């Protein structure tokens, strides 16, 4: 590119943004208002980790209450002040802790911290782009997220306390200021924070989608994209289509709260006030709109973790991921189905029971693509040559947790079984395993795997192993017994269980769970130390420490604007060509031309790209037919 074009591009900045190596950077433009996707991903990650610490700490505080109800804990008074007088947690604040723990973990850690971080880091690097399509919007996306975090945290310093109607903030509880203290200013701040978050996710989402579609480098066809990119792509689509509905639901709720409308309110008599003048609304409609977001949100959380796991497992097992096509189709299937099943969260909320039947039918279909993914992971491990890096261990942990938590979904998706299990600890166990722990594990796998790329340093493996084993064991000890509590009908969000002998028998289990939770929380110290100290003191990373195929490892260790110093790499094959027969090295980077084939426009020779051990058969393969129809639909061509 000539200098004139540089000048031109700088005058209208949104059109071009790469090749700025000579561009002078101040501290602010490099570290604070950075438009470089790698820096933004680091910002997302660190904010996410800080929010995660807050969220986990809160969970430990309320676990203390559950294990030793009405026992005094100095730590509770130290941190919560008037809400923990004499070291005893206030019942209202217990609900606030539960609510904010949920909100932080779901939105701030697992949506922004996981998908925000890795989408930003990996999308440009793995598809061979200089940066995101619009770096400016990318920056805005982070800063909206940051602002949103600040607003949410600030609700702790409100006199009436933060929102405490559960993370789903069902009206009328969340809509009536007099129904509980947490529904006052704290709730307003919650809504403001979530709306800012929606803006952030929207800006991020459209950026990720158009980057993936438009900015792949030469040869990076859709079927050569790493599964991480596929999962980020679908995640972005889910966020793009579902968050606006939450915006609608939130708008109605704000109007109900502040302007006296009755969208969700009807026939209410409040103690101390009398009959309210709201008639004709329906709280069930809020639940519909909320869960139209809420269910895809579950997959927004989980899918990036699954994508990261695919990459990490294939890389460390030194094998191609088993059934790439099936993996993509099941991601697509999960994304599609996640939009039409939201009602399984409301089987017994007064929704028309016939709709319950409809939702049950579509819900259980989701188990099929999930099962396919699991089996494919197992087949990938089979006859591999597995290297247990901490990332790999976390990926294996994810698969294990995903199986355990996913299977309990079959119970909850069944309307009949949900009658007993709804809102009990069974639900808590289910979603903490399948989307909580599993996604956190995916996030850790990603951090351990791409840390060398993010910071140019290596993390310490030993600390990583300790971190993994303690976290893994405590995750199971915390959540596995909860299934049994739930089956016995122990309701969630109860401040204490001692008042009823029926639930009192679970006290010893509660103690075990709490101790495991504390151990699990402390185990994160290993990670935090490992993470933050190695940024400065870690061993310098080599360019491709994991002998990986994908493009991000072809960039220099030191970050530069525009990612590649020379021209963009050209891609010749899929990302999972590990242990290709006849090759000395057990990996085959995507950008290395194979012999006798350096012109990618030759469609005939592309066949060489996919060496299969199967002998070509003439019979029609049904899955190929399925893929072909998809391919036709989206113009995907496997040459």
């Amino acid at each position, binding site marked *: 590119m000539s200098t004139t074009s540089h000048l031109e591009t700088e005058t209208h900045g949104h*059109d071009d*943004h790469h090749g700025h190596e000579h561009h002078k950077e101040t501290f602010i433009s490099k570290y604070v208002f950075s438009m470089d996707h790698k820096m933004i991903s680091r910002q997302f990650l660190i904010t996410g980790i800080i929010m995660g610490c807050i969220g986990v700490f809160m969970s430990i505080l309320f676990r203390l209450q559950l294990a030793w109800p009405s026992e005094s804990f100095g730590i509770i008074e130290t941190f919560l002040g008037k809400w923990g007088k004499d070291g005893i947690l206030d019942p209202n604040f217990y609900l606030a802790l539960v609510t904010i723990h949920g909100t932080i973990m779901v939105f701030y850690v697992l949506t922004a911290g996981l998908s925000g971080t890795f989408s930003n880091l990996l999308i440009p690097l793995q598809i061979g782009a200089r940066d995101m399509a619009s770096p400016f919007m990318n920056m805005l996306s982070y800063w909206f997220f940051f602002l949103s975090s600040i607003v949410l945290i600030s609700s702790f310093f409100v006199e009436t306390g933060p929102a405490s109607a559960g993370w789903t903030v069902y009206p009328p509880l969340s809509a009536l200021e007099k129904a509980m203290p947490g529904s006052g200013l704290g709730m307003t701040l919650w809504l403001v924070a979530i709306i800012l978050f929606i803006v952030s996710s929207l800006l991020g989402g459209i950026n990720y989608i158009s980057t993936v579609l438009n900015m792949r480098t030469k040869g990076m066809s859709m079927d050569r994209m790493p599964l991480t990119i596929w999962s980020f792509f679908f995640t972005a689509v889910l966020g793009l289509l579902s968050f606006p*509905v939450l915006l609608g639901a939130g708008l109605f709720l704000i109007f109900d709260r502040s302007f006296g409308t009755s969208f969700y309110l009807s026939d209410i008599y409040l103690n101390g006030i009398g009959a309210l003048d709201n008639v004709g609304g*329906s709280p069930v*409609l809020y639940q519909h709109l909320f869960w139209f977001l809420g269910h895809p949100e579950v997959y927004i959380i989980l899918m990036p973790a699954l994508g990261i796991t695919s990459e990490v497992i294939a890389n460390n097992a030194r094998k191609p991921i088993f059934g790439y096509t099936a993996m993509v189709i099941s991601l697509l299937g999960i994304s599609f189905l996640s939009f039409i099943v939201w*009602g399984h969260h409301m089987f017994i909320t007064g929704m028309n029971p016939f709709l319950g039947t409809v939702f049950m039918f579509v819900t259980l279909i989701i188990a099929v693509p999930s099962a396919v993914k699991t089996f494919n992971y197992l087949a990938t491990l089979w006859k591999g040559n597995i290297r247990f890096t901490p990332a790999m261990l976390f990926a294996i942990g994810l698969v294990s947790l995903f199986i355990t938590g996913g299977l309990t979904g079959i119970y909850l998706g069944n309307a009949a079984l949900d009658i007993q299990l709804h809102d009990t600890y069974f639900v808590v166990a289910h979603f903490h395993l399948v989307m909580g722990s599993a996604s956190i594990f995916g996030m850790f796998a990603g951090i351990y795997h791409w840390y060398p790329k993010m910071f140019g340093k290596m993390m310490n493996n030993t600390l990583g192993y300790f971190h993994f084993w303690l976290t893994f064991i405590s995750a199971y000890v915390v959540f596995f017994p909860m299934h049994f509590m739930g089956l016995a009908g122990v309701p969630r969000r109860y401040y204490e269980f001692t008042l009823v002998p029926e639930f009192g028998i679970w006290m010893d289990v509660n103690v075990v769970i709490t101790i495991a939770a504390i151990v699990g929380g402390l185990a994160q110290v290993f990670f935090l130390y490992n993470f933050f100290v190695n940024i400065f003191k870690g061993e310098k990373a080599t360019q491709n420490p994991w002998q990986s195929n994908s493009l991000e490892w072809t960039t220099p260790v030191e970050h530069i604007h525009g990612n590649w110093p020379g021209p963009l790499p050209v891609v010749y094959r899929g990302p999972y060509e590990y242990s290709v027969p006849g090759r000395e090295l057990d990996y085959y980077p995507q950008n290395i031309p194979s012999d006798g084939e350096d012109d990618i426009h030759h469609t005939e020779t592309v066949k060489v790209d996919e060496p299969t051990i199967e002998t070509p058969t003439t019979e029609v393969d049904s899955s190929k037919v399925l893929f072909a129809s998809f391919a036709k639909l*989206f113009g995907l061509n496997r040459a």
Partner: protein
Amino acid sequence: MAHSNKSVEDPEKEYNPVNYIPHSESHGTKEVWMGFWILLGLTLIDIAFYFIMPANMLRNSIFIVLGVVKAYYIVGTFMHLKYENNKLMLSIIIPIVFILWLIVLLLYEGDALSIME
């Protein structure tokens, strides 16, 4: 974008997808005015039905169908989607399925709510 077009033409230069702006051709103003008259006509038909027919389910469905037809002309002609790549078309239109599903279920639910009250 002058320089980007250059880079597309010149294979030696690095290809830059960001600056890729396809040659957008003008489809003339004829179709635009055509679209305008159709929309106007449909709106007038709406109004005609409004005054001629008594309010019932059939009339409502006519309105909805006409609304969808109007949407087709706005999106197709004005927003140019008819002339865009058909994959772009599909990726915009397919997600609308979810909205339809939401509409069907919530109308059903609204009906059920009215019975319950």
